[in-house]
């Protein structure tokens, strides 16, 4: 047939290497790298006006009055106008959880700097800011509580008065800790991670307009989870879901910051209904840094019990997470701390465990889940305490890890907190990374010393990343969002192209390429002829979205299921065209092959759509469009993991840290596209370096954030991020389609611990141990000077 399209057309790669495992460059990069992406900020709608918000300048205050100049009365909206809007409520079902209600515009008091007080509307953002500057706030400042341990003390100022304290949730697990208490080695440390702002290049942004034809409010918002945004908006605004359409266009980085229903989204939706014309809010960097994007702040008091040979007898931990003023939708204020208790053991197997956690309310932005979520803090605490055990026992840090890692013969393995490890060979990852970084050579170099006076050090860090965990895990936490089966649509076009539809979102993960590879693996349609439709509630199946490193497992599995069903229908049509028994035909490289000939998918599609007279009378009337659902055989999650090894040089007099070498051995199961996985690791590593060395928002005594621009909030740049050496293992998951595992977050989990351990390895001879991230230059010099003074004092004594 003349309209058949050659199956090798497209990206230029031969047909055979486009499926699962192919190292394909990403299709979407052609538009993204040429500046042709279409983000919320690129939308231009007729009659659109801009919003600037009046935000609280104080961390904690009672609102006496908001004075709006007469001239701006019809351009300014306050809580008094939003009488029909419900507050944002993200309730956890865990027993004892205290509920916070976040009014979308503050009503009686403000509980954080940057909390919304008024909406200002004008033809341009600059004019809206002029209006905002003219509004006079009458606030009665209240004592603020900005430090989580102080917030737990009796008598601390109360963020939510009616609670009686500042604790969202307290939890305790105890698995036989008393059995560990007689261990010969007992080391205790206080370890903590600073408060960060995750920093996608694109901030948040929302454009809302009314579609009168569809009787819908159309909300364009940079979101990882458009369907969940629809749930939340529907609840806050009291609008039926059919009247809401959420569109998430190109998204310039998510990392969790775009997996949250913001009060700003609700305000904009309300405003568009009120004024009747399109309205827009684009977050600026000051709003992003001071009012919204907080994450990561953990505090641990942790004790390890061990044998002299390094075998762990038990871990005891008190963990506190600074959850900020409100419970963020949908993940809630306690997800981090609840996760801490269940994932602190990491990849290690030991017999006794106790962990007590507190999710604490303070006068700061709500804590949001950032790539790795609680794992980065947990890994930091666990890997640093293992190094302390090694020091105490006089062992190499790798020996302690080797003694305690879960072993391959234990797989599948249920650990002490009932986490189910699906597969893997953790000791092999450790062995490979030790070989790559060459421990012996590093130790020899350390003995020789550095000509420039710096000190070098080696640090290890190993984690496991539970990904794509589903119904059984999330129903236990009882938050507003529980993932079930994931669905995908697959449709052949009349000319033999393929359209895939998913409800999750691609915002840097490369799904337009990798899901096309999954489809190609089954149907043989060239990646270039497969299009991914996503980011629009009107066009995609329901999904909880892109979070928890779940999309390749869940949407990938659903795409495979849909393509398989589509393939079976095509096979039956093809068999009819070949005048053959379907049982005698097979699907091969985009064509149906029968005993005496073959027919292409394009020919089959042409027949179905345009020459139905050629079909069998009993053809499946469902045709060449399928929606299929998927869940792995077990929904307790896949366990990918990696061993990281860092080699650093530290200048003890300036605190400057240079990363000399960085090796990663990772196992993400079957990799759909190793190039994309490498990209995920590079990006995660950059963020992990930020957590380790640079990024921190500090607060003054009144709860004012001290970083409001990127001059104060330092992100690592090209000069600070080395190219890591990556080695892939590929132990398939027994439970998932193709054996894939989720890998999206891992790169950001291990680096803070690996780098801190490396810095401590370098500085240990000076008597220095850095136990807080970021390990800033100032903190290093401070510790070095204190250690030198201690030596001087000892010598004098």
């Amino acid at each position, binding site marked *: 047939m003349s309209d058949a399209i050659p199956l090798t057309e497209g990206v230029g790669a031969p047909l055979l290497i486009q499926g699962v495992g192919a190292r394909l460059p990403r299709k979407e990069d052609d538009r993204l790298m040429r500046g042709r992406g279409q983000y919320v900020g690129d939308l231009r709608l007729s009659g659109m006006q801009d919003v600037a918000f009046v935000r609280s300048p104080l961390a904690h205050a009672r609102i006496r009055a908001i004075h709006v100049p007469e001239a701006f009365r019809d351009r300014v909206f306050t809580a008094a106008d939003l009488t029909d809007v419900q507050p944002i409520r993200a309730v956890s079902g865990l027993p004892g959880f205290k509920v916070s209600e976040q009014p979308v515009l503050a009503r009686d008091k403000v509980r954080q700097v940057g909390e919304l007080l008024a909406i200002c509307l004008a033809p341009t953002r600059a004019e809206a*800011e002029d209006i905002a500057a003219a509004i006079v706030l009458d606030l009665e400042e209240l004592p603020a509580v900005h430090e989580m341990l102080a917030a737990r003390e009796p008598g601390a100022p109360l963020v939510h008065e009616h609670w009686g304290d500042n604790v969202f949730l307290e939890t305790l697990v105890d698995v036989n800790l008393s059995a560990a208490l007689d261990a010969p080695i007992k080391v205790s440390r206080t370890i903590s991670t600073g408060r960060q702002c995750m920093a996608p290049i694109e901030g948040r942004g929302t454009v809302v307009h009314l579609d009168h034809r569809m009787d819908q409010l159309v909300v364009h918002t940079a979101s990882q989870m458009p369907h969940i945004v629809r749930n939340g908006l529907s609840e806050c605004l009291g609008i039926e879901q059919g009247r809401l359409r959420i569109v998430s266009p190109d998204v310039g980085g998510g990392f969790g910051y775009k997996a949250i229903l913001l009060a700003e989204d609700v305000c904009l939706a309300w405003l568009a209904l009120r004024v009747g014309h399109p309205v827009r809010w684009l977050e600026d960097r*000051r709003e992003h840094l001071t009012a919204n994007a907080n994450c990561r702040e953990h505090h641990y008091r942790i004790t390890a019990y061990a044998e002299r040979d390094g075998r762990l007898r038990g871990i005891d931990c008190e963990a506190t997470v600074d959850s900020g003023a409100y419970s963020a939708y949908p993940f809630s204020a306690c997800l981090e701390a609840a996760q801490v208790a269940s994932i602190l053991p990491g990849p290690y197997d030991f017999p006794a465990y106790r962990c007590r956690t507190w999710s604490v309310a303070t006068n700061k932005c709500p804590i949001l889940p950032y790539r790795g979520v609680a794992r980065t803090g947990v890994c930091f605490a666990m890997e640093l305490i293992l190094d302390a055990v090694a020091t105490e026992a006089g062992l190499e840090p790798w020996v302690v890890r080797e003694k305690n890692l879960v072993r391959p013969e234990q797989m599948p393995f249920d650990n002490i907190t009932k986490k189910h490890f699906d597969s893997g060979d953790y000791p092999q990852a450790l062995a490979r990374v030790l070989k790559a970084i060459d421990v012996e050579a590093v130790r020899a170099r350390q003995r020789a010393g550095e000509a420039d006076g710096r000190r070098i050090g080696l640090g290890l860090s190993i984690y496991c990343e539970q990904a794509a965990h589903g119904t059984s895990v999330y129903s236990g936490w009882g938050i507003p969002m529980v993932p079930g089966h994931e669905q995908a649509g697959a449709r052949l076009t009349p000319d033999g192209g393929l359209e895939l539809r998913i409800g999750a979102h691609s915002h840097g993960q490369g799904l337009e390429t990798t899901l096309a590879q999954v489809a190609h693996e089954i149907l043989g349609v060239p990646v270039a002829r497969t299009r991914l439709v996503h980011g629009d509630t009107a066009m995609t199946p329901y999904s909880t979205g892109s979070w928890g490193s779940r999309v390749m497992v869940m949407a990938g599995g659903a795409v495979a299921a849909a393509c398989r069903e589509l393939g079976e229908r095509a096979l039956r049509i093809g068999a009819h065209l070949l005048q053959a028994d379907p049982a005698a035909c097979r699907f091969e490289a985009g064509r149906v092959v029968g005993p005496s000939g073959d027919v292409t998918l394009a020919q089959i599609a042409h027949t179905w759509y345009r020459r139905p007279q050629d079909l069998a009378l009993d053809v499946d009337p469902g045709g060449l469009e399928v929606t299929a659902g998927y869940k792995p055989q077990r929904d307790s999650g896949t366990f990918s993991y990696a061993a990281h090894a860092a080699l650093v040089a530290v200048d003890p007099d300036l605190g400057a840290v240079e990363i000399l070498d960085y090796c990663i051995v990772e196992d993400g199961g079957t990799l759909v596209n190793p190039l994309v996985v490498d990209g995920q690791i590079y990006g995660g590593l950059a963020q992990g370096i930020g957590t380790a060395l640079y990024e921190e928002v500090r607060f003054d005594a009144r709860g004012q954030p001290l970083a409001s621009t990127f001059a104060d909030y330092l992100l*690592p740049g090209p000069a600070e991020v080395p190219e890591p050496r990556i080695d892939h293992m590929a132990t398939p998951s027994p439970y998932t389609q193709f054996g894939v595992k989720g890998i999206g977050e891992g790169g950001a989990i291990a680096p803070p611990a690996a780098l801190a351990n490396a810095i401590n390895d370098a500085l240990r001879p000076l008597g220095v141990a850095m136990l807080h991230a970021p390990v800033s230059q100032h903190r290093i010099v401070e510790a070095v000077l204190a250690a030198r003074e201690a030596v001087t004092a000892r010598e004098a004594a």
Partner: protein
Amino acid sequence: MKPAPFAYERPADLATLLDRLAGAEGQVKLMAGGQSLGPMLNLRLVEPDLVLDITGIPELRRAAVEGDTLVLGACVTHADIEDGRVPDLTGGALARVAAAIAYRPVRNRGTIGGSLVHADPAADWVTSLIALGAEVELAAASGRRRLPLDAFVTGALDVALAPGEMLVAARIPALTPGTAWGYVKHCAKIGEFAHAIGAVRIEPETGRGRVVIGAIERAPLVVAEAGRLFGGRIGPDFAERFDPRAADGVLREAGMTDAVDRHVHVTILARAVAQAARPAPSTRPVSEAA
């Protein structure tokens, strides 16, 4: 982060500019490269009534050698100096300073005049040119005057400009052969604001030396006769004679209470001294620290 409304003009000659500067109502800001003023406008840290763009004035882009002095117009960019598009009497010292200022896009637009007038304590030109003994040339509708740069910079973000007056040029004396020069700064990461700057200009033959400590949240600390930092005497062995405790004392006297800050400043100054004692590098180093 959008600026408050302001008027904008771009005069084509210096006389017109000085007239507007003398006669305009309200607050006036001059803009050259806009690398500091732009963000400050956007953050509404400044809300001028009028912004006068001075980049259209040919005289301000000029660079010339007058005897043993290099005269750089206010609108000469850091990149002009880095790339050698202007003359040099310092054996490459200016180019090395320029090459480590912020990031290349900033250097493409940022100017030497803008940097000196903005007088950010962490700025490279403020400290390095004071150490080199530079002067600034100021102009107003009523006439011109010159001031030593250390008299011009009166504090953090504060300079001795009279109303209606502007900086038109920096005048930088030659770094003669036999004069030792060291300039080292410390940043949390490459391209960011410096946390410590040390600049030394030493004449071992005459025993004279000038030491400047910058990035100290006020005007740079100038030790004009630096013998006290070298055991009371400057000679060919100055690097060995450098006394960190004396430098620490200078910082204490200046009111720097944080011991960590003092240690970092003294370390950086010591490294600037060590650099001065080495032969001039043939290639351009970036800042000392990562």
